[in-house]
């Protein structure tokens, strides 16, 4: 692999994670940790990434330039794979499933906050999220057929649901790969891939 082939996975991992340190980038990209660190330092010198102001001292995030360069590389990859219409079609179908996930997360939060006169049950919320996981399996299969980097969302989402039954904080926690965090990443991935503003 050349340097520019490795740049996209690093920029993209930061795009969808938001903020990450080198070991996390290495896990996400499959690069060795020292390689990820070097790529991050090169990208910092080029103004593509910065040390993230509100996370740990070793955490990085993209600059606007880094996000734009990442989007250009993603667009080139998308067109090489001939997959633009597939991803556009996936994003269209994503809306209703996204509503299912965000409303299940919201119902659960409002129940926990005591803000609803009709409390949700954990069973009901997890049933909706399991339905979304089934839809996600089909979505991911379509994407991975053209773009292997989409692999893993369904596995991570389902793992979060598995843990949520015993510990419901796995539904919406921000400090781990909760169901909502994985879903938020996938949404960001689809938008970045098509260069669409949120």
């Amino acid at each position, binding site marked *: 692999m050349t340097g520019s082939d490795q740049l996209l996975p690093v920029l993209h991992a930061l795009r969808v994670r938001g903020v990450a340190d080198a070991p996390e980038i290495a896990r996400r990209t499959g690069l060795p940790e020292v390689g990820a660190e070097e790529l991050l330092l090169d990208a910092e010198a080029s103004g593509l990434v910065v040390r993230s102001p509100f996370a740990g001292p070793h955490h990085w995030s*993209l600059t606007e330039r880094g996000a734009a360069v990442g989007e250009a590389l993603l667009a080139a990859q998308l067109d090489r794979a001939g997959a633009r219409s597939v991803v556009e079609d996936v994003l269209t179908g994503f809306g209703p499933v996204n509503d299912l996930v965000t409303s299940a997360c919201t119902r659960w939060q409002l129940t926990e906050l005591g803000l609803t006169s009709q409390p949700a049950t954990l069973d009901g919320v997890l049933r909706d999220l399991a339905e979304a996981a089934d839809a996600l399996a089909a979505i991911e299969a379509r994407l991975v057929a053209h773009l292997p980097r989409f692999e893993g969302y369904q596995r991570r989402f389902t793992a979060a649901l598995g843990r949520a039954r015993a510990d419901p904080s796995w539904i919406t926690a921000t400090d781990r790969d909760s169901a909502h965090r994985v879903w938020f990443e996938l949404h960001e991935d689809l938008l970045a891939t098509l260069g669409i503003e949120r």
Partner: protein
Amino acid sequence: MAFTRNPVTGARTTVVEAVPGTGDRLVSGGTEPERWHAEPGARPRVDRARGVLSPDQARAVVVSAERVERLLGGPQDVEWALDTAGTVWTLQARPVTAHPTGAAGPPPGAVGAVLSSGTPASPGTASGRVRVLRGVDDLPAFRPGEVLVCRATSPAWTPALAHAAAVVTEVGGLLSHAAIVARELGVPAVTGVTGARDLLDGALVVVDGSAGTVRLVAA
């Protein structure tokens, strides 16, 4: 759209407005929608027919809007869509916000008039200085304890949200990712505030994430 109170009289009637295709033409007011109304427990009746919904479809929308009202515990404006399979999707809901203007003056104390309002998205009230962030490159300018104002949030914004007194976004509703993250972090949030980024940097405001308001604190 569906309103679980008559928008004019406030009576307990669900009013449904429908246009073919997507709802942006309805929201922008550029078209005369079909209109139905339903008294509690009664079948919906059409007020202005445009050949958009069948009586059963109108009823499905009414039932769905009334579920949203029960779920959220108050009158709601519900944005919905009906797909070709006949499923009603709730896209967004916000508490009915129309009050008679001028009925309530500024509350006692230093808190001034409502500068802007939107969807109450994460409960609680907090005050702080406004910091308008137009993109991730503005993040370093943000100081913990400020009121973070932006268009929408992506995963990169989560660490800053965790340090914000409150969050105000221009787009999104109760279900948006920013709302879910703010509730998770216990940060008051108001979403869907049109023109929020026109707020002045440094202005001292009180954000009420339960009422959906941003108020200026008098100097």
